[in-house]
């Protein structure tokens, strides 16, 4: 891997996740390493365990067995996982998950409540991020008044609010039409390139997966392929 000398951001060792007292085995022993600055696509069929894997990486859920290390430390043993979620990672959801009663500008400020930024600083930073994703004319619009592509761009701006070094995206173009999907992917790839973020993206779209440097293929809770594509490509 081209990032072999880069710092290891994530290391999974025998990672397992079971639900319903072991009746559902979402992950059946997964091992991998992801290095700083990598663009990794996790692909697989529906129900293969790729979203579960993303949840583990985002500390949204705990593994049933095995270990997940973040920068050399066991994630589950960290005292404050909310601080990890707030500062270390940015999350982009397929369904955007913006808060409907808050404007674009306010939605982007939400993660910043867990920082020492003052209200004016939060507002200024949110405005800056929205401008960087091309939404300067939509700052005071509520999500219901934005197109799907615009909502996802607000969500991307929100994921960057606290200067995360890792971006986790769960089917970020899954709810978008082709044109909007292309724009959103361009934005994500640009952010990865410009900000040297580690980008881990779950998708079932082979076209999107091809743009990643590395593809992890998940099937029945196991990684069945770990392929290198080379540097990320433009659409």
């Amino acid at each position, binding site marked *: 891997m081209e990032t072999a000398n880069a710092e290891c951001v994530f290391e999974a060792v025998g990672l397992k996740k079971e639900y319903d007292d072991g009746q559902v085995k979402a992950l059946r022993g997964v091992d991998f390493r992801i290095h700083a600055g990598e663009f990794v696509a996790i692909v697989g069929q529906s129900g293969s365990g790729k979203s579960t894997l993303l949840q583990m990486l985002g500390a*949204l859920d705990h593994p049933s067995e095995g270990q997940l290390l973040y920068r050399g430390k066991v994630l589950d043993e960290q005292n404050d996982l909310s601080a990890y979620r707030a*500062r270390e990672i940015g*999350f982009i*959801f397929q*369904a955007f998950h913006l808060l409907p009663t808050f404007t674009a500008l306010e939605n982007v400020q939400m993660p910043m*409540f*867990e920082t020492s930024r003052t209200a004016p600083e939060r507002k200024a930073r949110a405005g800056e991020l929205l401008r960087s994703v091309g939404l300067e004319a939509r700052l005071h619009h509520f999500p219901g008044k934005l197109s799907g592509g615009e909502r996802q761009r607000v969500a991307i701006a929100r994921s960057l609010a606290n200067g995360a070094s890792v971006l986790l995206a769960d089917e970020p173009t899954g709810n978008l039409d082709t044109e909007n999907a292309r724009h959103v992917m361009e934005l994500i790839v640009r952010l990865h390139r410009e900000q040297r973020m580690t980008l881990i993206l779950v998708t079932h779209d082979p076209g999107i997966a091809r743009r990643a440097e590395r593809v992890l293929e998940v099937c029945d809770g196991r990684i069945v392929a770990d392929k290198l594509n080379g540097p990320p490509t433009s659409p």
Partner: protein
Amino acid sequence: MTFLAVIIRGLFRRPVRTGLTMMGIAIGIAAVVALVGMSRGFESSWANGMKSRGTDVVVSNVGGALTPKPFSQSLVDRVKPLPHVAETCALLVDLTSVEKADMMIVSSRQWGGFDWQNLKIVSGRLPKDAKEKAVVLGTTAAETLQKKVGDTLQLETEELAVVGIVDGGAFVENGSVILSLELYQEITGNEGKINVIDVRATPGTTKDELSELCQKINAAVPEVHAVLGSENMRDSQALRVIRAMSWGTSSLAILVGVLGVMNTMLMTVFERTQEISVLLAIGWKRLRIVRMILYESALLGFLGGLGGVVLGVIGVKLLVTAPVIRGLLEPDLSAALLARAVAISVLVGIFSGLYPAWRSSRLMPSQALHG
């Protein structure tokens, strides 16, 4: 955007539901303000009446009724010689219907007693002597009965001349029909009977000495009970019942408010399960989520409390104009009571939000990825 703005926005995302819940609390708090304000007002009105008359110690036999039971006037002679007693004034006080008024205080006083001294004549004069078939009316009583000097007033079977309108310096005094004790005893057939002895202590008597005097009166005249003028109504069993009923009714109203707020906040948590999960996923601490729900319910309680205070004050103002109680009491709508009512409402909000907040803290951030 501040955290308070997040809370306000969360609360008013369903304005109709929030408004109805607030109204539910407001009605409960209005009940507290009205009922407690009235019962405390009744107590303080009588205490102020005593103060205005310059009465330090009240000797009566209140028992279970609002008006004391009659006893022999001769008991006055056993009170007079006690230390620190400067003057006494015997009274026969009644709460009875007088012409148009369903309930009015009729305060008959020993002619020449100190209880006549506080009356300031607004118009007319005081009765000439104990036997003159005349009354004076407190200013509120005159308004309620729509009487002026020169009119007559039917009291029991007797038609009495209204010879004066007086300002007694206290709500209870101004709401009274005042006449001489001898005349009222004759009209009601209660010759030799009184139900109150007002005692004025010698100047410079301390509160401790007054309390001692009460004990001495109680020992010397066990048929009656002496209390400080300022605590006159505190011993009344009837008032205790009123007070208990006020708090009982208020508590029920508050309980309804608690259930209303709890229901609303639970609904809000259920409806916002995914939103809360998203907030957890983007790094909000569970404690912040708990705070958000608790602050929302506290704000709901606060706003409901303010509404309740306004409703309660309006209600009480309307209630005291009702003929049945007009002139009987001045409700206690002190800032302290109103502040206490709002504080109760905020506590109701916080208490009601505890379970929903706990529920919200149990949500998993992984739920954000579903749906």
